[in-house]
């Protein structure tokens, strides 16, 4: 579905929202809420939190609609807001929430139809999920944006407000960290 | 997050079964998920009266009076003599369920064989879906929202409501006074026997279609009447229309959403205030 979206149209719609025709936001919501939800879900592994964050993104869009500039693409702007919101969430959430996250992961593991089998180098969802969980928010975001959202490094750089090279380094570090975490998990299991 | 509050009530009816005079009134207060935000209330009854009043509060307060067994006797052909000398050991099904979800309060599972009167307080910004088949009254006061009100054998009275309303009863009067109407929303009032008496703010813009087959129609609004009392065919706004006998079709204050008034035998009064 995403391929059908014409980025100029998004921008046109958002400019209309900016100029007071806020009902147009409905169409942008319809276009993006699934992607945003998936983005947050991959970051937090929590459905309720993800739904709240999606709502939060659109609240901020309404509030800061005047700051939208037609220069960049709407989707970069949108995910920039989403990313900041997620960082706020990480800073404000209590350890109890993180514990809940862990519990949630186990639920996913239990629900997962293919049983984990990582004896011969096959990685289970759970293991990858746990490793992803351990990354700091910045790395998690960069990885998810590049792996799932189909953004080019240039676009991610715009979202993350850093250079393209920095994005690549972060993706690379994130992957390496995950690999190390997974190795550590495995070693633990062998003991 | 969004919590679904389910309050399951089981009323223990004791004396009520025999004595229609001793009424047991109970009260429950239902808090809302988003206090201060508009909400909805849905209540459909078979037997009993309803009164809903808007108030400056954040909870839905439900008072109910169980009037005892009603139509159940239809299924109970036994005579009192059959029971002479015996003690009643069963309790007729009673109770109901109240659900709150995202500011929507639903009262359901009311036993169709018991007669229960409801008196409910709601925050003023509430949309109501109310229905009864047989009740003494169905009254709403001072509530703002989109209302759907239906009765079968009984009157409907809406006092100082605002928003919009879709109202019907078969045998009973429909009396409604609006302190404010939502622009652009259509409304509809219909019955068979009984008058339809609706009061609207004088500056309301609407287009009306009214018909009383056997009664008469009165208004103090300035009707810019388009067609009435004729049966003919013609084109209006480029569309084909057949005009029925006895219809009064008019634009008021320049016209607007359609307000339909339709009765078989009653009079229609359309008043401005």
């Amino acid at each position, binding site marked *: 579905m995403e391929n059908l979206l014409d980025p100029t149209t998004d921008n046109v719609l958002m400019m209309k929202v900016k100029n007071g025709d806020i009902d147009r936001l409905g169409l942008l919501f319809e276009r993006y809420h699934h992607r945003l939800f998936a983005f947050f879900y991959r970051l937090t592994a929590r459905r309720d939190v993800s739904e709240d964050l999606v709502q939060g993104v659109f609240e901020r869009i309404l509030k800061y609609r005047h700051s939208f500039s037609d220069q960049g693409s709407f989707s970069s702007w949108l995910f920039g807001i989403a990313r900041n919101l997620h960082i706020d969430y990480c800073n404000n959430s209590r350890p109890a929430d993180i514990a809940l996250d862990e519990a949630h992961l186990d639920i996913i593991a239990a629900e997962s139809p293919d049983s984990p089998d990582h004896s011969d180098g096959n*990685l289970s969802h759970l293991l990858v999920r746990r490793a992803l969980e351990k990354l700091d928010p910045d790395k998690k975001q960069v990885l998810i944006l590049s792996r799932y959202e189909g953004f080019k490094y240039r676009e991610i750089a715009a979202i993350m407000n850093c250079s393209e090279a920095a994005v690549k380094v972060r993706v690379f570090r994130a992957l*390496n960290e995950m690999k190390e975490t997974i190795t550590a998990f495995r070693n633990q299991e062998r003991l | 997050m969004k919590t679904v509050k389910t309050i399951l009530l089981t009323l223990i009816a004791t004396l009520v079964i025999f004595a229609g005079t001793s009424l047991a009134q109970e009260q429950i207060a239902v808090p809302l998920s988003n206090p201060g935000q508009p909400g909805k209330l849905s209540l459909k009854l078979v037997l009993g009266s309803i009164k809903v009043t808007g108030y400056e509060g954040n909870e839905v307060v439900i008072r109910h009076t169980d009037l005892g067994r009603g139509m159940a006797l239809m299924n109970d052909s036994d005579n009192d003599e059959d029971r002479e000398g015996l003690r009643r050991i069963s309790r007729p099904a009673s109770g109901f369920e109240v659900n709150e979800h*995202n500011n929507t309060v639903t009262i359901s599972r009311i036993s169709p064989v018991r007669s229960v009167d409801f008196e409910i307080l709601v925050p003023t910004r509430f949309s109501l879906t109310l229905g009864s088949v047989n009740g003494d009254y169905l009254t709403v006061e001072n509530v703002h929202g989109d209302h759907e009100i239906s009765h079968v054998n009984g009157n409907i009275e809406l006092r100082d409501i605002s928003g919009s309303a879709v109202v019907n009863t078969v045998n009973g009067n429909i009396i409604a006074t609006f302190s404010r109407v939502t622009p652009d929303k259509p409304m509809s009032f219909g019955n068979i026997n009984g008058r339809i008496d609706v009061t609207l703010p004088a500056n309301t813009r609407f287009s009306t279609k009214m018909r009383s087959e056997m009664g008469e129609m009165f208004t103090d609004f300035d009707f810019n009447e388009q067609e009435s009392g004729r049966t003919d065919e013609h084109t209006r706004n480029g569309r084909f229309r057949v005009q029925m006998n006895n219809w009064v079709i008019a634009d008021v204050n320049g016209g607007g959403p359609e307000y339909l008034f339709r009765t078989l035998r009653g009079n229609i009064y359309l008043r401005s205030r």
Partner: protein
Amino acid sequence: MKHEDYSELITDYLRGTLSEAGQQQFRMLVEEGRLDISEIIELEKMYRELGTIPVPEPGSQMHQRFYAMLDQETAAMEASSTETGKTRDWLQPVINSFRSPGLAWALGMLLVGLLAGDLFTPFSNRDDKIERLSSEVYQMREILMISLLENDSPVERLRAVNVSHQIPAADTRVAEALLNTLNNDTNINVRIAAVDALVERGSSAFVRQGLVSSISRQESPLVQIALADAMIELQERSAVGQFRLLLEQETMDPNVRHKLENTIIALL
């Protein structure tokens, strides 16, 4: 971590976006042993696994919350500006319709179609264009109406029935939707409005047939009477049998009975 110098190459490799020069460089580095191929394979495997983490569907309340917020903001904006234009009257149902996500898509795509159509036919005959536009407007109204009919609020469904007055009678989908409303809507006022809207489409045999067969399905005397009026207006004699069927019910209100008996007389 020595690989970090090559992070760009490796990440491009993982995403499959290596340029030709990059591919050559990558191959060279592996051959020279400066990139550990087993580590790369490990990374690749993980990268692939990342793609298989399942994501559930969001709950429906997300929509409700969003539109509630939008409504609130709209109301706040309207409160601050006293101006109300005529365009908003028309726009209101469109805006409301966004509460149904499927329709929002349909409308969105239709708009895109309209725009694209305009872009690609800049020199077409003006009359053609107007004709096409008006048929597109009808299409839009049709989508709007059919989706409004699914709205929970009877006020919105009434509005939908009223929108049908602005769609040409030849449109069978609209007629079907109205008949469906007549037979299944939970609100009596909405059903009555559907009867009136269908009478306007009474030149269609399909509509008349639908109205006739609906008679015995109606339990509300209000709808029964509306149908009786409709049949007289359309002079639909085939309805007589249906009314007779209705009259067999013993519990009928005497006023309604009288009305239906008169209807039969008027039709014969």
